């Protein structure tokens, strides 16, 4: 069962990949969905065995590399963190599969799509179940590959291909960081197994690594590079540009990418490495700051987007910022709790957005929608549920995790010495709650509640999605409503022993019990900001839309909304400062000057040219004139004689004579 949960998606992927053309759409759909369904069932069983009954499972399959100290094996580790990830991945993946079988009904390449989806799930499972860093890296790269294949699924579109390449390359920047982290871990700990590395961490607190002439603290350096990997995968600020462009894939892919799998891997890495990162105080603070900045950046950039999917994509980045900054403040279990809740409501939002897009004949622009509440009441209700869960409306999933993150951040001011930074992080997080509420409800207003902008011929064909697409939405909506309430005590309850040894939090940083003692005003602050954001969306779209539009059309308002719509010009700055110079360098220096220049000139091209030049010159010597032949004969005779004498170190006057003779000849 433990192994079949990993192997079933692979087998099903191979089945659909190689046999898809023989079994057709229905055959591959049935196989893919049922294999992932089995995985989902198994993951619940494993959750009961490992998570609730506390029997961690370690499976050794076979040795992989064995060279000196370096020993890596194929082995699987099922502990509490893995189990939570398994539930998230397999269940949401199953729902997405189910949704995709219907959503992609018209596509001729549906077996290929299901192959890639299965492959994606397989690699993600490899990532979370591995018991060493190398095998984790297999999954890490695998999900990157699968995301590339999925984003460029409609490979005839230029945009899809470009954004797929962007996703792969930007991810690879983070992967380089992860590689360096793995090298450093092996250099320091002489092993890459989780158990060995994490048990050795406390003995390396004071040690340092000598890099580039400086002594760097070992744990800080390793944590920094690990975090660099997480930055790429979880699209934190700096490497976040790929995630929004990854919208080019089909909507179920976005749901899988943003909710359950790809982007959660970065958070998972931080949580998994909690025994290491918790000791790296400086880097932890950096992680927290960057996460908070990501949250506010993405939330602000999401406010003026007009693409339905892009708004939700920005909310993903923003929520990932929350997870990362709570990991940075050593609240790993809260981070994982938010990950789980987020997976459910984000999948819900994406799939219902897909339902809207599906019914509007693939229109993604929110300005061309509106009034859909009359036509798609069901989709509206699930999307409202998802949005309320996202903004942290009380007693929905997001409330229990996100508000708790902010409460604990407010509390951490008293336990961590860097008061100013923590205050800063707290207010960034709180303000992005406000922005989150604003753009979520702006999306709802523009899509469902405002007056309609749908073209007349289109509006007759708007229809509610088929039942197979609605079932996942219902399940996810129930998850979004009840998951936080039911699993709160399991994840972050005071004194829960669910995590066991899988997450390590420094005892002095453990502040869950103190969170009960916070003043009520602090606890209500996020909710207050949420209400503020919702009312701003309400005012700007329903009550005083003329007035708000007027404000937006002033010079300053125009500029602000333009900058936010262009995502703070981050892509532009990236292109101007990094990508174009590197591309130009690659063309001018590497290609033109070195490859085609120096190496070719020194190498084959130059040599052949020199030889043929010299051969031409040698040919020119033979003029056909007898006199010239005689001259060369005599000169060479003298040359040979004098050469002989130079070798013998005796300077005979013959040399002088020959010199004189040459002078006579040439004058």
């Amino acid at each position, binding site marked *: 069962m433990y192994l079949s949960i990993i192997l079933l998606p692979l087998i099903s992927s191979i089945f659909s990949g190689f046999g898809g053309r023989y079994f057709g759409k229905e055959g591959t759909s049935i196989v893919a969905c049922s294999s992932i369904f089995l995985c989902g069932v198994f993951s619940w069983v494993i959750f009961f065995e490992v998570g609730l009954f506390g029997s961690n499972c370690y499976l050794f399959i076979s040795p992989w590399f064995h060279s000196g100290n370096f020993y890596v094996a194929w082995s699987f580790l099922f502990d509490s963190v893995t189990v939570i990830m398994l539930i998230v991945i397999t269940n949401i993946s199953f729902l997405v599969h189910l949704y995709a079988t219907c959503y992609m009904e018209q596509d001729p390449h549906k077996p290929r799509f299901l192959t890639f989806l299965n492959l994606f799930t397989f690699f993600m499972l490899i990532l979370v179940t591995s018991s060493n860093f190398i095998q984790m890296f297999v999954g890490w790269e695998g999900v990157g590959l699968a995301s590339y294949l999925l984003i460029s699924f409609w490979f005839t579109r230029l945009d899809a291909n470009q954004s797929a390449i962007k996703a792969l390359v930007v991810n690879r920047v983070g992967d380089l960081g992860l590689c360096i982290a793995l090298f450093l871990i092996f250099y320091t700990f002489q092993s890459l197994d989780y158990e060995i590395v994490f048990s050795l961490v406390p003995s390396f607190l004071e040690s340092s690594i000598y890099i580039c002439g400086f002594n760097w603290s070992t744990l800080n350096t390793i944590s920094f590079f690990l975090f660099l990997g997480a930055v790429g995968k979880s699209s934190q600020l700096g490497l976040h540009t790929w995630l929004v462009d990854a919208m080019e894939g089909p909507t179920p892919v976005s749901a899988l990418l943003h909710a359950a799998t790809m982007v959660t891997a970065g958070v998972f890495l931080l949580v998994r490495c909690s025994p290491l990162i918790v000791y790296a105080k400086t880097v932890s603070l950096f992680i927290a700051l960057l996460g908070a900045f990501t949250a506010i950046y993405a939330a602000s950039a999401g406010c003026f987007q007009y693409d339905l999917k892009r708004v939700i994509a920005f909310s993903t980045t923003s929520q990932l910022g929350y997870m990362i900054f709570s990991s940075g403040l050593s609240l790993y279990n809260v981070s994982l709790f938010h990950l789980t809740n987020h997976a459910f409501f984000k999948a819900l939002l994406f799939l219902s957005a897909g339902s809207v897009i599906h019914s509007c004949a693939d229109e993604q622009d929110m300005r061309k929608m509106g009034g859909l509440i009359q036509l798609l009441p069901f989709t509206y209700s699930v999307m409202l549920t998802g949005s309320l869960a996202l903004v942290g409306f009380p007693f929905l999933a997001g409330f229990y995790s996100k508000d708790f993150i902010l409460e604990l951040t407010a509390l951490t001011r008293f336990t961590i010495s860097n008061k100013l930074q923590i205050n800063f992080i707290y207010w960034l997080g709180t303000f992005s709650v406000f922005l989150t509420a604003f753009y979520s409800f702006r999306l709802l207003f523009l899509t469902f509640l405002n007056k309609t902008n749908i073209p007349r011929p289109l509006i007759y064909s708007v229809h509610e999605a088929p039942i197979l697409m609605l079932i996942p939405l219902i399940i996810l909506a129930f998850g979004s409503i009840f998951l936080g309430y039911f699993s709160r005590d399991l994840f972050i309850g005071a004194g829960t022993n669910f995590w066991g040894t899988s997450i390590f939090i420094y005892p002095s940083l453990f502040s869950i019990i103190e969170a009960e003692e916070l003043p009520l005003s602090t606890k209500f602050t996020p909710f207050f900001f949420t209400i503020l954001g919702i009312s701003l969306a309400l005012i700007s779209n329903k009550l005083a839309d003329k007035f708000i539009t007027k404000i937006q059309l002033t010079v300053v308002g125009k500029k602000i909304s333009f900058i936010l719509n262009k995502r703070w010009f981050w892509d532009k700055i990236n292109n101007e400062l990094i990508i174009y110079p590197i591309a130009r360098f690659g063309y001018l220096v590497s290609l033109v000057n070195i490859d085609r220049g120096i190496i070719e000139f020194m190498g084959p091209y130059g040599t052949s040219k020199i030889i043929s030049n010299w051969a031409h010159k040698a040919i020119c*010597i033979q*003029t056909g*004139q007898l*006199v010239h032949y005689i*001259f060369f004969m*005599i000169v060479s005779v003298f040359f040979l004689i004098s050469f002989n004498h130079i070798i013998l170190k005796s300077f005979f006057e013959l040399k002088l004579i020959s010199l004189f*003779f040459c002078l006579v000849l040439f004058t």
Partner: protein
Amino acid sequence: MINLLNYISLILMLFFLGILGMLYNRKNILLMLMSIELLLLAINFNWVFFAYYFDDIVGQIFAIMVLTVAAAESAIGLAILVVYYRIRGTIAVELINLIQG
């Protein structure tokens, strides 16, 4: 009194005169043959002088052999010259450039 340097200088002068005669001559194969004769004469003189100087008979024998070879060579050379003149109607050296590199 036999001065070594004087004799060698004379021989070298003769030899270089022959060489220069070959090199500076553009118009006439006949002059070239004559220059070759002058070269051989210088060599012969060399043989004879050193045979006397070292008191060794071999040099004189060689001188006679070179004389013979020179006679044969000039005879063949003149024959070629005559044949060439019959075909081309000229004996200019600078016009013998049919084969170039």
